């Protein structure tokens, strides 16, 4: 039961949770300024917040391209193979 209560606790305070989420995202980029990038593989990774942009663009691209591909006719009715 306690798991359900915990989830409900956060759901009841959804606007606050979302605000905290934004703060965490901003903090990640800020922290990236101070991280030692000795292990970086390429020059572009030295830009602060590079991976944040990469993650967001990757996510958007995957969703948009996949849906576009699916609606080309790849997605079809569920009984397609049944006749």
């Amino acid at each position, binding site marked *: *039961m306690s*798991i*359900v209560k915990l*989830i409900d606790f956060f759901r009841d305070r959804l606007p606050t949770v979302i605000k905290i*989420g934004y703060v*965490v*995202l901003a903090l*990640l*980029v800020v*922290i*990236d300024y101070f*991280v*030692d*990038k*000795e*292990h*970086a*593989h*390429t020059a572009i*990774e030295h830009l602060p*917040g590079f*991976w*944040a*942009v*990469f*993650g*967001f663009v*990757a*996510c*958007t*691209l*995957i*969703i*948009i*391209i*996949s*849906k576009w*591909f*699916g609606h080309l*006719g*790849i*997605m*079809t*009715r*569920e009984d*397609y*193979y049944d006749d």
Partner: protein
Amino acid sequence: MTDFWLHPALILIVGCFVLPLVKGPAKKTFMMLVPILAFLDVVMMPKEGIYGVVQFLDWHLTFGRVDALSMVFAYIMTLMCCIGTLYGLHVKDDSQIIAAWVYVSGSLGVIFCGDYLVLFLFWEVMAFSSVFLVWFRRRPQSLATGYRYLLVHAFGGIVLLAGFVLRYQATGGDLSFVHLDVEAPNLSTYLIMIGFILNAAVPPLHAWLPDAYGEATVTGAVFMCAFTTKTAIYTLARACAGMDILIPLGVAMALYGVVYAVLENDSRRLLAYHIISQVGYMVAGCGIGTALAINGAVAHAFAHILYKGLLFMGCGSVLHMTGKSKFTELGGLYKKMPRTFVFTMIGGLSISAFPFFSGFVSKSMIIASAFSEHILWAGFLLTLASAGTFLHTGLKVPYFIWFGKNNCSKETWEKAADPPWNMQAAMAVAAALCTFIGCYTPYLYNMLPNKEVVYQPYTPYHLSETMQILLFTAFGFFLLIKKLAPEPKISIDLDWFYRMGGRGFYWLARKPIQSVDTAWSEGYRYMGLIPLMTVSRFWSWFDWHAIDGVVDGIARSVRSVGGRVRRLQSGQVQYNLYYAVSFVAVMLVAYVLC
């Protein structure tokens, strides 16, 4: 102890024979005991050596080649067999557990074999036993799905066999299962590789995987997701390490799985597409072939078996309890199945490579090896695919089953609850291991085959990089959530060709061929059947009047003799013995006198 070696597959096979004989309360204990014994056998066995060499015709067949690479795979496979059996402990149907154990034995056989003959034998055992895990779902479509699965694997087996035969001829009789010459590959090398990558579900040879795993039984899918593809990774790491073509193939499959996962509406099929994506990392790792890359492929296979098993157990629990696996028929279940949610979430965080979960310490090794070999495109594309992994398995699956719009029917909602204790216990064990591997890296790293490689995943830069990618992916997910809403559709994949091709053949059989057949039967009816019927009518008359008369006569005589014999017997044992002994005595006396 040092010279003694027992094949763990043998323990499972013997277990299969004994299982139907064990009844009552001991049954569950026995079911757990068999895989645990196999696991202990692997843990206790010597770490290096060649065992179980059998002379067969002209060949030395090696059943037990033990080294670091085979040990780590055998360890995780027998461990997963324990977890899977615990998960299936409630299954009443012995045959399902037997099929699963034979399947694991096939996998272990491949892992310990030292030559291609033994490999081929166990390779086929895997295909022919795992198909039952699909058939035992017993839905009308299960049979067809199983046959498709079997046909694809039979095709793969033939390609593999062709490769072995060509190699046997080219090398003058060398069938040992060792690293192939990947610098100068010839036809046999390619055929063997194609046979292996079919089992690893590399596109375009992948469509069997979501087809079969989406249709398998709840317990069957937990077994299937662990063994076939990862055994294939073992064979690739052993024979094809450093084969360049595997890098683009692996990267392509990592992305392919992600794209289809966006479109998928069935939770277990989505997870199946993510197997393709994750195995893509391992295939790419085998292709890069450096010590770090092979370690990464092996580590990722190890971690993958656990977290993918856990995810299939979570979605399987939802299917087991509610009978539904489609996102458009589920939603909002966190109130009814909270524990299943937590376990599945741990699986989702592990596959997404969150810090302190297993994927973080294994997947990054492959990506790092791509970057350190300056194959930058592979490194970046694999990182992109890992954003997709979190998007689906870490966010889409939990969100649309446990939160999101409640699409449950009244009946589904009432049936939903956390599953029986054994299923929860199996999920808890897998979840604990996923977390443990992520937190305590020496556990996994000390088992890896290339001991000289030092890799440290927990650097500030790697943590910062991973957290940015993951959390900004989550940000994108919630911004675009409307676009991701599940649609009650299926996606056409490359199985279209053989499903529709098969239909074309069926049409051909039905229309032109059958019309010839019908004409033939009509002709036969007039020319052959009518005279035949007349003849058979005569024989029927003869049988009734003549033969039966004789038989009835014999029967009547036997009955009357039997009646007389019965009167001689009083039914007591001592009298019977008395008559028997007297009879023998009379015969003996007669013999001596003559």
